[in-house]
């Protein structure tokens, strides 16, 4: 309770929390949609926002508001799959590299660092070109997770490295604690806050990359996501034709989402860092 109260003292936390609640509600609303998101021409085309269609309709004959609820939901699903799996990889890699050290550490960190250096975006484009017809939310999430773990594995490794030298490690080993138990029970609590804040960043990263791939037409365009919505809006020249309600919906939604996720992560990690926390909430 106290933690929450301290967090809410930061205006950035309040704003981002509020925005994310709205976005999650939007995503949940998709369950009550009167229209099937995969069907076209269910409503009149290209009408302006009105009482009946809150955000107007698009050139495919879909209601933009309800389409947006599905888009937000699917974008969140993809990014959650991607970030949860890549977190698992990052934790395993980081812990093994940090705990084993030596040649294992070098090899794992080399692979991780290479992933940071190599233009992942282009590799993803190549992959997406080849698995295009199998592309769905899960495949895309898996693809993103395969490339999104490198930086965070390095962070987790650095924590483990410093923990390994502490006295309690030796006590645990001498009293017969197994490696796995030691890592999970003793080290995880130290790494959890960091993992949580990288999780948020990774969600944002995954949504951004999904949008980029969608705009290039490399995902299944019949599944509404923030990216595919934008793709359709661009495809039908909605800017030139002045259909601002269509093009602005995905742009504004993603803008809100990215800023909110970033502020949330900054706010939380500032709170977790004792040096900045004292500045914010004072020593207690």
């Amino acid at each position, binding site marked *: 309770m106290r933690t929450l109260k301290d967090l809410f003292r930061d205006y950035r936390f309040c704003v981002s929390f509020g925005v994310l609640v709205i976005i999650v509600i939007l995503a949940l609303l998709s369950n009550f949609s009167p229209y099937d998101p995969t069907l076209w021409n269910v409503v009149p085309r290209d009408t302006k926002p009105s009482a009946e269609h809150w955000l107007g309709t698009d050139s495919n004959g879909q209601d933009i508001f309800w389409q947006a609820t599905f888009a937000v939901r699917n974008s969140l699903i993809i990014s959650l799959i991607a970030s949860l799996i890549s977190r698992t990889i990052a934790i395993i890699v980081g812990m093994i590299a940090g705990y084993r050290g030596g040649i294992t550490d070098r090899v794992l960190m080399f692979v991780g660092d290479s992933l940071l250096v190599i*233009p992942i975006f282009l590799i993803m484009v*190549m992959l997406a070109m080849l698995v295009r017809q199998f592309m769905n939310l899960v495949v895309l999430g898996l693809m993103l997770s395969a490339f999104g773990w490198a930086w965070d594995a390095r962070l987790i490794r650095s924590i483990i490295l410093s923990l390994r030298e502490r006295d309690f490690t030796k006590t645990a080993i001498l009293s017969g604690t197994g490696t796995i138990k030691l890592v999970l029970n003793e080290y995880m609590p130290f790494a959890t806050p960091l993992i949580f804040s990288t999780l948020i960043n990774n969600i944002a990263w995954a949504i951004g990359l999904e949008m980029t791939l969608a705009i290039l037409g490399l995902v299944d365009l019949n599944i509404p996501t923030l990216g595919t919505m934008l793709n359709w809006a661009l495809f039908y020249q909605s800017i030139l034709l002045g259909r601002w309600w269509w093009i602005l919906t995905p742009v504004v939604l993603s803008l809100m989402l990215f800023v909110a*996720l970033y502020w949330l992560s900054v706010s939380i990690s500032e709170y977790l860092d004792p040096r900045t926390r004292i500045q914010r909430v004072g020593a207690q």
Partner: protein
Amino acid sequence: MTFVKRYLIPRLIQYVLVIWLGITVVFLIPRITPNDPVMRMIDQMQARGSTLEPGTMDAIIRDLTQMYGLEGSWLDQYWAFWGRLFRGDLGVSFFQFPTRVNKLIFTAMPWTLGLLLTTTAITWTLGNIIGGLAGYYSRKGWSRILDAVAMVVRPLPYYIFAFMLLLIFAYVVRWFPITGGASLGAIPTFTWAFIKDVLWHSALPAISLIVLGGAVTFQTMKLLVQNINAENFVQYAKLGGVKENRIVGKYVIRNALLPQITGLALGLGQIFSGALITEIVYGYPGLGMLLYRAIVNGDYNLIMGITIFSIFGITTAILIVDLTYPLFDPRVRYT
């Protein structure tokens, strides 16, 4: 000698290994995906309704099979793949048959290189100077305003940010052109008119890369400077009556620059990808646009060529940045 042994040689080994890993991934991708890329290309081509003479078709199939190295065992394929790369042969473009991928890349490259080098130089210099000053004077009003701006810009993906700038500055208030690298039909010459035309077309892509990249540099630099500010030697210099300008310029910013050089090296891959995406938004005729056309036309060979070329380019650029590091850090030079 120790410098060569402890700094130079590990860097060079790493350089070679990263390239090896990257190219190996590129080699493996078409093999681990459940798809025969060659036949898929042919299908796609026919689906588009383009008719090819049987001879051309055979040539394409042969070329693609070779390029994907689908002849012989995986090991043979792997050797053949590297053999072609060492000869600098990236095969032919599938869509613009029989133009060689090399040629397409080298036509597009100057645009990307020009945009990337200028914006990265400006971003890094400006970001560090402004970030350094904002970190030193972090309680001033302008520092807080810049911080707030960076907080909003920083999380945006390249595409969204570039697209918003395009909407505002090319569609709503028409200050800049909507698309292209130069006016239609302009002939590339060294005249002032042409250069001005190119600069005008490059302004929005450049601004969007600079602001987005600058926000990151600004934030990291500001944080670094704030941390250094709290250190004893800065306090000592202040108490000793060293002039403020000298403290900021010689003591604080210089120390903070070291991690920023490493940061630049690590970030180059992302900056490059960002530039490609930004080019696509603005229809800027560099590698990004080439990539876009390759994707739209299903030209896998061209995409692979761009990827391979980029892996070489980025790792080399990072190596160069890494090698300049000793110029800034005497500790590396003398150990």
